[in-house]
């Protein structure tokens, strides 16, 4: 599956400044693995040693946080948008 990945400013030094990159994979995990292979600076930042998403990284498939779908095993479809976002305080508080 070909997807588009959005990279947040804080991680763009690892992608030579690119804010969106094309990637392939059947699941979110495969997409992130492929990205990590292409941009070695990203690899350690997204997935922790436990194989799970880094605590301060949220990954969205289109609009949904994948932690509440099937996590890294969440299946992606052609044309989906995978967004990587740092966890920050937000909302009406």
């Amino acid at each position, binding site marked *: 599956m070909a997807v588009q990945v959005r990279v947040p400013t804080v991680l763009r030094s690892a992608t030579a400044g690119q804010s969106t990159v094309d990637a392939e994979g059947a699941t979110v995990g495969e997409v992130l693995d492929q990205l990590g292979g292409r941009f070695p600076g990203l690899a350690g930042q997204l997935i922790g040693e436990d194989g799970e998403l880094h605590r301060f990284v949220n990954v969205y498939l289109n609009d949904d946080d994948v932690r*509440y779908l099937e996590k890294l095993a969440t299946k992606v479809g052609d044309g989906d948008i995978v967004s990587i976002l*740092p966890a920050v*305080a*937000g*909302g009406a*508080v």
Partner: protein
Amino acid sequence: MTAYESVLDLIGHTPLVEVSQLSPNPHVRIYAKLEGQNPGGSVKDRVALAMVEEAEKEGILRPGATLIEPSSGNTGIGLAMVAKVKGYGLKIVLPENVSPERRQLLEVWGAEIIPSPGNEGSNGAVRLARRLAAEHPEWVFLYQYANPANPRAHYEGTGPEIWADCPEVTHFVSGLGTSGTLMGVGRYLKERNPLVQVWAIEPPTGEMVDGLRNLEDGYIPPIFTDNRGEDLLDRKTIVGPAESVRWTRRLTEVGIFAGISTGAALAGAAKVAMSVESGVVVFVAPDGGWKYLSTGAWTDDLETVVERARQIIYF
């Protein structure tokens, strides 16, 4: 008729109103919990009162004390009202890009506003408030993101009210900020009926994440972690400003004048409705529309309003 002793006694016991006419699925009923009916105008009155009374009970808050709190508006406004009634000073760290009405309301109850950079959003306000609180140990820092009285206000108030009015609820939908509403109501409802699904709605992070130097600058509210938020939530989804404004407008079809984050929550409720065969969705309408009149949300061209909404914190 009951005569109340204090305006603070009017906090809570808000009405639940059916808005199923707006449901995209005829087999899914939708109810709005109208938190704008609170005397300070938002759901945050509950949190403000609960945090202040807890601090009084613990002896942290003494007569004449000064409070400091980061807020994009509603908690600040609720605290300003409570502080005025109870005689405390209040300093609110407020991002510069909130709607002017939020600022004006803080001024109504005499809170002092400490501005924080708009492009850092709530995250920047939290950071600045934490620094100022550390520098001024004489100020009382209630810290809504970490204060257990925040989710407790919802566990003891909002949650039981929803359960009493609508025990047939299958899905609960609410915006995610401090996570207090979701943690408190979500836990209460799941204890009553483990099958209840809890959906969190988030605004897009927009430009406020651009200022982060590294991922470790990120932030997860301690009350989210303390309440095992990852296990409690069933879904977390982003609703953008266009959808939020569109659903805020649709609410007027049933006569409800609510803030833009209510439109976001209703958009989430509609998403639930489209994803299930049948059910009963309850969502929180955090405030009324009054504080957003200056955005032209109901009357101006949609694209113009959405562009304006991108510039301010409306959620």
